[in-house]
């Protein structure tokens, strides 16, 4: 009796695939439904943003930073602003810092909502996605009123923010937070605690704390592994030292520590912490200017600097080298999604094809941020 001939098949998932969150490609070697390996292939969304910085100058690069990570553009704005301020030694007025925090935390909620919604959609639940998008639209409405754009904000400037809060905005924002908290609980009842959903995520893609550090994971992905590391708390920047908030970490309530469910729940809890920060910031808003005096022809002294921002996808690093002219000599962005892509190949062995999409979604990989 001859043995049954079985062979692995190579599946090409992406770059055009409904659930790769942008233009990603995975070469999947699968034995039936079970994956042997999924090799991520990046670079389909490369727009050489770092090179553009060398051509458009310091002020002019701000709108381009929106495109580094268009889901949470406030953080990329803030990273670029902070890097330039550090180079030139500019101090941002207190109110400006608060405006930055308010805008950035709203953006964090919006980004996490998108992440949670697409997570549901990748698992086949369509309704939570539209509910999450509805809430995100409400945040976008607020941000639109603040800075005039819904996605590519270009809100921050070197030395502060471009617009002060419009009249009546604070009350609207506080009213939205009142509305948002019950909606988040409702979202949890609809999706997060659903048995099918928990079963799909728990014990999938387990990352141990050691692996997380080895693979350079940052942000919610790192915290889901039980490591309490948040730039906002540990290396406070902007005005974050003024606020009282917790850093949620994964606890493995539903499965093992560091599984997809932990990563998902860390984001849900971070939204609640963001609401806390926003309440404090909106209540204690100082008066004064929001923008420091920065020359229009901005020429920082020659030198280099590196700053870190806790974006929605984790520790975002901006490295800028100035040669004293009006154009940066070199800019580099270090983003969380790129690191998260690296671990997929390791985690994918032994998972099912259906788990790959949840794994990508749980790592909250955003294609433009990977490639820049």
């Amino acid at each position, binding site marked *: 009796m001859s043995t049954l001939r079985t062979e692995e*098949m190579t*599946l090409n998932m992406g770059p055009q*695939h*409904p*659930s790769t969150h942008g233009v990603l490609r995975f070469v999947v070697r699968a034995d*039936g*439904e079970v994956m042997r390996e999924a090799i991520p292939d990046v670079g389909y969304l490369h727009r050489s943003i770092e090179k553009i910085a060398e051509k458009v100058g310091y002020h002019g690069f701000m709108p381009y930073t929106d495109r580094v990570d268009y889901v949470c553009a406030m953080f990329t704005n803030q990273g670029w602003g902070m890097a330039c301020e550090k180079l030139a030694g500019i101090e941002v007025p207190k109110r400006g810092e608060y405006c930055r925090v308010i805008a950035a935390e709203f953006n964090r909620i919006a980004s996490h909502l998108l992440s949670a919604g697409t997570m*549901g*959609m*990748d*698992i*086949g*639940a*369509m*309704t939570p996605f*539209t*509910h999450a998008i*509805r809430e995100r639209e409400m945040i976008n409405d607020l941000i639109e009123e603040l800075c005039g754009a819904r996605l590519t904000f270009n809100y921050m400037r070197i030395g502060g923010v471009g617009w002060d809060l419009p009249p009546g905005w604070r009350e609207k924002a506080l009213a939205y937070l*009142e*509305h948002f908290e*019950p*909606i988040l*609980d*409702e979202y949890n*009842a*609809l*999706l997060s605690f*659903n048995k*099918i*959903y928990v*079963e*799909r995520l728990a014990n999938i893609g387990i990352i141990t704390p050691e692996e997380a550090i080895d693979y350079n994971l940052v942000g919610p992905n790192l915290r889901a592994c039980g490591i309490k590391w948040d730039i906002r708390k540990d290396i406070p920047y902007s005005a974050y030292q003024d606020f009282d908030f917790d850093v949620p970490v994964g606890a493995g309530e539903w499965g093992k520590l560091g599984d997809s469910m932990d990563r998902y729940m860390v984001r849900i809890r971070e939204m609640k912490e963001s609401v806390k920060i926003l309440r404090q910031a909106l209540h204690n808003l100082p008066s004064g200017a929001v923008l420091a005096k920065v020359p229009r022809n901005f020429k920082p002294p020659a030198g280099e600097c590196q700053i870190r921002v806790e974006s929605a996808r984790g520790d975002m690093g901006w490295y800028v080298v100035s040669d004293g002219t009006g154009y940066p000599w070199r800019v580099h962005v270090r983003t969380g999604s790129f690191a998260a892509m690296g671990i997929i190949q390791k985690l994918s062995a032994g998972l*099912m*094809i*259906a*788990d*790959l*999409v949840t794994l990508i979604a749980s790592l909250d990989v955003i294609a433009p941020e990977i490639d820049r």
Partner: protein
Amino acid sequence: METLIQNLVAAGTFGGNTEIVAAVAIFVLSAVVFLGIAFPFAGIVSWVERRVWARIQSRVGPNRVGPNGFLQWLADGVKHVCKEDVIPNDADPTLFKIAPYLVVLAFTLPWAVMPFSSSLILADMNVGILYMTSVTALTVVGVLMAGWASNDKWSLIGGIRSAAQIVSYEIPAGLSIFPVILMTGTLSMQGIIKAQGWAPQHWFLFANPFTFIAANILYISALAEGNRTPFDLPEAESELVAGFATEYSGMRYLFFFMAEWGNLFIIGAIITTLFLGGWQFPHVTNNIIAMNILQLITFNAKVLFLVFVSMWVRATLPRVRIDQLMTLCWKYFVPISFADMIGAALWVAIWPDGNPVMGYLMLAGGIVLAVVFVQRVIFYARRSRMELYFHPTI
């Protein structure tokens, strides 16, 4: 239907060759009446589903074509017919073309034993329910064929998933029918309905706890067989692009989805017949035609409610994974339905004519469940502090 034709034949309407004429007349009439119901139904369901989904998702849904978008399904159908029918180069053309027809065949065959009312049934077979469950399972042949013939790995995985799923879920579905058959002693659709009463406490759903469990398992298994969320793995658009239908376009693509939407009616009809009293309606008039119309409305209302529930379930639940699907089937549904069958058999042995008190108790339990549910709904609607809005359409 048959009686009508026989009356006409007896009156000498067709002259000679009565046998052939009668056969042809039955064929034509059934084709016109039943396919005239089945296909538009599938289309209308697609529109209703989109509107129901939209409301659940805080959207409006298609409302432009015709009154409230009612003709959207017709526009979609015309669009699909006008589209190019693409057959991939490396596909197996014959199988590729046949597959959608097989799926549609599996969807149309059950209409033959659909008990719309006490006399409106095409063929009251004595093995009606068995026929129903067996022909609906034909879908798997079409889906597997589509997955294989497309020569696409995504399609193949979709097709194989579908085969595994439908074959597995036949078992709990079949076992869940047994309690009812044990109680009625017949497989005929009309016989099962006639064994029930019009009042809810006389429905088999509330006859005893075992039939209640059986009804739930049958409904879930039927959803799985109909490739509906949470068991829509063969299509699983976030994983398999479009599953077995990835390479299809135009009319053939439409056939698959028409069958899927039409199957909703069949799922509802099976549950209605077995557990919800079918067309049973209080005897209010002696006029046979009026009575039949009332029964038709009753039957369709029950079925449409179940169709609505399956849309609602689809809008709520995420999709299970293939191994969880199998776990659910073999570790939960199969043992439970076996135990359920034995329990129902014991029940029938103890109370051969049913236990009337239990019917009322079960009904009270059902009402309590519904009240709790409505309270939860009100709780969520209130807590969200959103504007309440009772308009069914917008």
